[in-house]
């Protein structure tokens, strides 16, 4: 089983390409309108955000309320670069710089705050994200509260989809590696993990850094799609939004995060015509799901578990 070209991998690749082509075709025949496209962009960006936060909170068990902070760093870095170098190359360099900048800040913030646990960590990450927001609010280069506008648009279906797939594949691979299992062991029992040779501080910071990396990419895609960013776009409520997707989908299920991101974006779009009651409905949907599925829609299950189940049945002796 050392080749990447297994039947399963080819099947997955086929599905990935098929989805891409399908959406592309629907867009070109006008079935997906430019109005729908905004929902599509929201879904893609939220998937990247939720899957990366799930690594930190769902898999490693470190409650973070600051994910939007790292997204904002990515958004500003990419925006500033692509505004200066208005080209696809500039955009790609912008994404890379966005991801790296977010990672660096993630590591710097992670090292002191990840010593804290539970509620304390949540509050500390919240505070850090607020600090990031206030910094952007006061910097000259980011144009303060007015924000940056007229950011060239390079984010399109192709790039969004590419980065969604990359995020899912890379984080999924990581979780299925020894390093990923080390992260999960921290969630399960930190003392036992440490006693089994796991440097828990290192892996917490690692998970946090990886999470920040992808949040930075999400921010970059956001900036170059919506033309306009301001510090308040990435406030506390945005962090909560991402956390809601993770909790709703299931802490520790990548599939769950994807499904929840799609579902919530659709619900939210559908409710847009009922502006007055929109937020009440949205909250109601959340409350109902959490009452009936407190572990989230998928718990810790993944779509691949379906295949495992079948194989297990075949092997009964």
């Amino acid at each position, binding site marked *: *089983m*050392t080749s*990447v070209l297994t039947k399963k991998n080819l099947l997955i690749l086929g599905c990935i390409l098929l989805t891409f082509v399908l959406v592309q075709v629907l867009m070109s025949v006008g079935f997906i309108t430019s109005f729908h496209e905004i929902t599509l962009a929201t879904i893609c960006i939220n998937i990247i955000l939720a899957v990366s936060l799930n690594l930190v909170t769902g898999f490693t068990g470190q409650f973070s309320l600051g994910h939007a902070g790292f997204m904002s760093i990515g958004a500003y870095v990419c925006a500033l670069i692509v505004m200066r170098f208005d080209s696809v190359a500039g955009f790609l360099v912008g994404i890379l710089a966005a991801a790296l900048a977010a990672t660096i800040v993630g590591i710097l913030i992670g090292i002191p705050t990840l010593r804290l646990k539970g509620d304390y960590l949540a509050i500390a990450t919240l505070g850090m994200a607020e600090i990031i927001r206030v910094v952007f609010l006061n910097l000259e280069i980011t144009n303060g509260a007015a924000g940056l506008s007229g950011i060239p648009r390079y984010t399109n279906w192709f790039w969004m989809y590419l980065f969604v797939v990359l995020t899912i594949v*890379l984080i999924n*691979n*990581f979780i*299925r*590696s*020894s*390093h*990923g*299992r*080390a992260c*999960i*062991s921290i969630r*399960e*029992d930190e*003392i*036992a*993990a*440490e*006693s*089994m*040779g*796991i*440097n*828990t501080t290192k892996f917490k910071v*690692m998970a946090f850094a990886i999470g920040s990396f992808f949040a930075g990419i999400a921010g970059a895609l956001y900036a170059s799609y919506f033309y306009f960013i301001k510090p308040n776009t990435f406030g506390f409520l945005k962090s909560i939004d991402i956390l809601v997707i993770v909790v709703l989908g299931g802490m520790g299920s990548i599939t769950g995060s994807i499904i929840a991101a799609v579902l919530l974006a659709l619900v939210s779009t559908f409710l847009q015509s009922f502006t007055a009651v929109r937020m009440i409905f949205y909250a109601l949907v959340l409350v109902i799901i959490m009452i009936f599925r407190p572990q989230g829609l998928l718990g*810790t299950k993944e779509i691949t578990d379906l295949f495992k189940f079948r194989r*297990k049945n075949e092997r009964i002796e």
Partner: protein
Amino acid sequence: MPLLSIEKVTKSFGGLTAVSNVSMHLNKGELVGLIGPNGAGKTTLFNLLTGVYEPTSGSIKLQLEEEKNPRELGGLKPYNVTKTGLARTFQNIRLFKDLTVLDNVRIAMHQNIQYQLPSAFLHFNKYHKEEDRLKEEAERLLDIFHLAHKKNELAKNLPYGEQRHLEIARALATKPVILLLDEPAAGMNPQETASLTETIKWLRKEFDLTILLIEHDMSLVMKICERIYVLDYGMLIASGKPAEIRANKRVIEAYLGEEVSHA
């Protein structure tokens, strides 16, 4: 020089001295018992040896055969202690409950993993080779405890005795030189205890281990330990061969005292 030397180790929690000026040693290949009434400080001593606590004073030295100078373990982080060759089980089982039996063992193998972060993300050939090796090794360990067929079950779904076994398998997966077992027979019935006794004896030979064993079950301790240390109120009150310990007045008093207070 002994493999492990505990020299005048003390641990205080505020006003309470849980371990008081204790000196002990383990020679290579020995199976040593550590007994004492409830609250005597046995588990605290394990926590000191494994880096969960830092000694208030005293030192813990590990002299590996292949190294010239002894290493000081006191004050090391638990994962570094494990790396130098000490592994433990917990009195109150601390498995990764919601993970599979196989994952419990594989996590303990992480410190010897042979691939880096890029392979973790991109699953290069090295990843597959190494994961195959890991799985094989883990299954071999599980086999010793007759758990291989349950490798895909969640640890929390195993019966109590098997959870204790899995904890030992997990500790062995770190490739220890010294194995610390904290009441491995607690909650087991006599047959299970008897079979565990055999397993521990066999493990010591097979894995070339030095074992320190905390146990309340005297039949087990007296049967397999070559030497025994006795703690009471944090102090070492006796040490010697099982027969000597059984005849020791202070030990009898300590245990009688406990029974009287429990009555």
